[in-house]
């Protein structure tokens, strides 16, 4: 069984679930609320070994027996402490987030993407940071300044963009505009960031693709059948 952690509004995750089911895979969608409400979490850590399991109220158990987990857990739902105090609610939220980060990290099945200690769905970096890393691995990058704001940045409609998708070490170019020229550098970038599943967005307005940012929550449908097949294979290969 492959588990997809996502919110009910995550249309990309719902699309992926349909596509993988159509390929005969058993898919379970798990919502953030299910992680918190009447669930049973068990993490055991010691020097040589450890185990992780999460039993949901509906009886589904997430543990090492999963074939894989697609992690689109952007955040956990807001929590209110029984004391009602804002500081206590913040503490409860942080405790849950820290516990779930460790849980996802401990699963031995393929987890795309692994969390960091601070972000549940993987490495989250600023736009300037992504571009610096991209330049370091030799990708052409679009210039960025901290003066750029939502108001001053060109809108999506004004800029011609294209994306590459990464699944494990496979690079997918659904629009066929990159001719494989950025593949190795993108692999180097995702290795550096510890991300296995993402889309990398490039600005095409200057003629040459210039990297702008990397998204660890890729819009799956834009990757098409090739992305679904690559994800399916990534889960099977890892078993």
């Amino acid at each position, binding site marked *: 069984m492959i588990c997809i952690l996502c919110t009910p509004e995550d249309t990309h995750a719902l699309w992926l679930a349909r596509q993988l089911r159509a390929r005969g895979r058993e898919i379970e969608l798990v919502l953030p609320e299910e992680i918190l409400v*009447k*669930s*049973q*979490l*068990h*993490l*055991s*850590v*010691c*020097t040589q070994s*450890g185990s992780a399991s999460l039993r949901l109220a509906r009886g589904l158990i997430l543990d090492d027996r999963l074939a894989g987990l697609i992690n689109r857990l952007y955040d956990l739902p807001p*929590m209110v*402490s*029984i004391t009602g105090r804002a500081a206590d609610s*913040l*503490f*409860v939220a*942080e*405790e*849950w*987030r*820290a*516990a779930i*980060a*460790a849980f996802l*990290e*401990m699963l031995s099945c393929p987890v795309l993407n692994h*969390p*960091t*200690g*601070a*972000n549940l769905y993987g*490495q989250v*970096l*600023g*736009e*300037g*940071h992504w*571009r*610096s*890393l991209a*330049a370091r691995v030799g990708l*052409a*990058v679009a*210039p*960025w*300044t*901290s*003066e750029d704001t939502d108001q001053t940045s060109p809108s999506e409609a004004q800029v011609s963009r294209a994306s590459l998708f990464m699944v494990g070490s496979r690079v997918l170019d659904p629009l066929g505009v990159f001719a494989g020229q950025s593949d190795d550098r993108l692999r180097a970038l995702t290795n550096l960031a510890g991300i296995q599943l993402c889309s990398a967005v490039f600005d095409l307005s200057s003629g040459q693709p210039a990297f702008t940012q990397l998204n660890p929550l890729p819009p799956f449908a834009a990757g098409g059948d090739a992305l679904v097949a690559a994800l399916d294979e990534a889960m099977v290969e890892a078993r």
Partner: protein
Amino acid sequence: MSKVLLLGIPTEPPMALAAEALGGLGVDFFFWDQQQVSQSTCMVRSSQMGLAGYLSGPEGRVVLEEVGGAYTRLASWAALPELKGCHPDDPRVNHACKTHRALEEWLESTPARVVNRTYANAANNSKPYQALMIRRHFHVPETLVTNDSETVLAFCQQHKRTIVKSISGERSIVTEFTMQDRNRLSLLEHCPIQVQEWIDGFDVRVHVAGQHVFATRVQSSAIDYRYDRSPQGARFSPFELPHDVEEACVRLTEEMCLGLAGLDLKFSADGRVYCFEVNPSPAYSVFESATGQPISQALALYLAGL
């Protein structure tokens, strides 16, 4: 020698000691006082050529590409006295947010030695997550994280003594699991708990600054020596680490991409060395003041690339 940038509040002891040590070494440094954010500007740009930009404030201006090392202990800017309670639309809030975002982008991206970058600090936000990294080099205590009271009780029965600590970086006071805690286990339905076997032995705090290692033995009767309220309080004395332990401390700190770290070790009665936590923002000044160990000097040398 390149310039060193200090970011924080000048009177905060770790920052003050770092500034003093840099001055003593004759290193050119710029101290940006975070409390002066309203009178400061930061601009960063990133391109194929790399990063460039500046930070300016009442004390002067620094060109960021000239900076070779940075030590940051920035507080949450929303908690700064000038901004506390301000409406989110207040221009001062907008300016502080923009300035800190630009600084953060630079700190995360610059090839300079940064103590420490936010992404490197992230592991400390989840102690069991961090334990998975620690256990490559040290023993870690048997640990349970759960929201199931039966499992907690079973774990406590397996161990003579059990301690409770937060899972995240919030409210990280370590206490012993007591009868009183048993009576509160029904609260687990709302929030998980982390319990650990108690390890008998003595505490050693290790500070790693670059390749320099300082170990301090801590004598205290408290469960968490940081909160020792006894008349004599916790006592600190320099401690000589076995070579392999010293090496493991440096390797772990490097693996976690930290330039400065505080490692909480316990030398157990059976000869094992446990590591409970790696603190990426250690208040090393407490240990330096108590023992005279030149931690700030090692930090200054690291920042200056010496």
